[in-house]
């Protein structure tokens, strides 16, 4: 069921208020001069004019640390306990990323620690009103449409167009004074979303397919990767802020009583030195990506090439979070990819 509604600016605020009063609503809110996804306490907290959030919304399904099993002596139980929540105001690039992690956590062994949270969520997108300094979503993975969300809000003159995509999105209509959108309003919303695509400060100049092929061929250019990774701290910031990174490490910890505890997973980062360190048994270990240039290369390969067949496009959505998070400013995929394409 796909319907288009219109709501005035003033009624929109009441719509958000009504949802906040009876549902758990997660949306972009200000954190000093930046933005984060957080639980809305009131409609005033919602900042649909945000540029990009520090962490992507995947944290709502796949938190930075997540208990998987709790145990006490020989008893144990899983920790899956999904909470229904509304993610409101997700930009289209993060919607694309959530669709990717949905697929990655579903393939082979279904990961219900993620999927249960995901299925309990309603995702409502919103158009981009402010463009972040490192954004390049206008030119990355253009063949990959945003999907998997339940509705999308676009700010137009005098109010918002709300397009629903199925029952979950439709179920929110009752919280506001919506009218059917006119054709002109739907057209205006479409234009708003199309026009913003050309406005990113950074651009890729080739198709995903061309990029995937040429990046893959650059694998053996060791001097090239070493030069790019020279200032890499192996700090993993580019991974941790990435909306499509999904690696985690699992640790067991005991409580103070020494008989109870939890098995917990934590976001991991393939740029860090020990990521690829594996046990050979008997205390011996092997690190199969020991050099920082190898790890730097691995990330670019994963984002621009390795996962393309599985995902239908690159595992990068152009949010620019990695570029902004890298203190050496070497993580920017646009810089690396354009260098490879121009060589």
């Amino acid at each position: 069921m796909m319907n288009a509604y219109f709501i005035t600016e003033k009624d929109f605020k009441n719509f958000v208020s009504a949802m906040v009063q009876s549902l758990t609503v997660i949306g972009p809110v200000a954190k000093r001069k930046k933005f984060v996804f957080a639980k809305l306490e009131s409609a005033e907290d919602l900042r649909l004019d945000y540029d990009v959030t520090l962490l992507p919304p995947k944290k709502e399904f796949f938190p930075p640390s997540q208990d998987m099993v709790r145990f006490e002596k020989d008893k144990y139980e899983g920790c899956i306990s999904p909470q229904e929540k509304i993610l409101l105001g997700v930009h289209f690039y993060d919607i694309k990323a959530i669709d990717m992690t949905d697929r990655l956590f579903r393939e082979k062994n279904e990961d219900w620690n993620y999927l249960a949270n995901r299925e309990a969520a309603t995702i409502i997108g919103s158009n981009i009103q402010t463009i972040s300094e490192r954004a390049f979503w206008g030119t990355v993975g253009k063949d990959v449409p945003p999907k998997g969300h339940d509705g999308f809000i676009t700010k137009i003159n005098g109010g918002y167009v709300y397009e629903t995509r199925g029952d979950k999105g439709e179920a929110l209509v009752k919280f506001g004074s919506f009218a059917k959108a006119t054709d002109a309003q739907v057209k205006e919303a479409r234009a708003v979303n199309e026009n913003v695509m050309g406005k990113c400060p950074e651009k890729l100049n080739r198709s995903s397919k061309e990029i995937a092929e040429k990046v893959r061929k650059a694998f053996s250019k060791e001097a090239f990767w070493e030069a790019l990774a020279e200032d890499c701290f192996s700090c993993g910031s580019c991974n941790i802020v990435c909306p499509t990174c999904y690696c985690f490490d699992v640790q067991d910890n005991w409580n103070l009583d020494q008989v109870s505890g939890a098995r917990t997973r934590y976001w991991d980062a393939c740029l860090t030195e020990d990521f690829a360190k594996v046990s050979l048994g008997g205390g011996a270990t092997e690190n199969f990506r020991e050099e920082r240039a190898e790890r730097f290369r691995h990330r670019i390969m994963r984002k621009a090439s390795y996962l393309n067949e599985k995902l239908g496009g690159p595992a990068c959505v152009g949010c620019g979070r990695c570029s902004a998070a890298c203190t050496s400013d070497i993580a920017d995929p646009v810089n690396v990819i354009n260098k490879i394409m121009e060589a």
Partner: protein
Amino acid sequence: MAKAKVAFFDFTCCEGCQIEMTNFGDAAFLELLNHVEIVEFREVMSEKTKEPIDIALVEGSFTREADRKRLEEIRNRAKIVIAYGACAATGGVNALKNHMTDYKEDVYGKDAGMPHLDSQKALPISAAIKVDYCVYGCPMDKYELLRILSHLLHDKEPVIPNYPVCVECKRNGTICRYQEGDHCIGQVARAGCGAPCPADGIPCEACRGFVDKPNEKALKKVLIEKAKFSEKRAESKSRIFSANLRSDAQ
């Protein structure tokens, strides 16, 4: 199963890491006593022991050759030796003097020649004896100590991070100090603390020391280019807690 016998010892330090242990509060500390027997801990008890011990928690850096014998004596009767806190693990803030020659006059003035003030380079205790594990930090993180102790009590290998503080700041959703026009050396600092300082708007000083392979060159570059440090300040910045881990360690 008999409780593991645990003893605390101190060398060149402020004993703040031992005090930090008592900051657990009654409930946590008393619960811990159900699982270990503390046989020497001069901050909280007067008893001492010369008996064999299971876990020795050794605080303080090794700054006097005369201390070697006592360290060896502890090593010889301890099954496991843990370097307890920054001074023991890396030399800590004491190692700030290692690249200087005039520190005694500077600190003690006319008393600089007194024999009890004589000390050499501040080194981690691993410079004198074999160390099995380190609890990093100034002060050490009591929750990390608990994790290490409970792993040892369960005969498991404790996991001590070799990734930088940036990982924890990012997981926490903390705004990077550099994005607020500040400086930070969390990119080279060993994580495990949970990154509380940047979360409170304070740059990381790497009190837990460096990760195994810190990119010192890139750090200097970023401190100059992004934090607008002078070359001299950028060069010496990481010395505060990590003098012995730097490539120019004396």
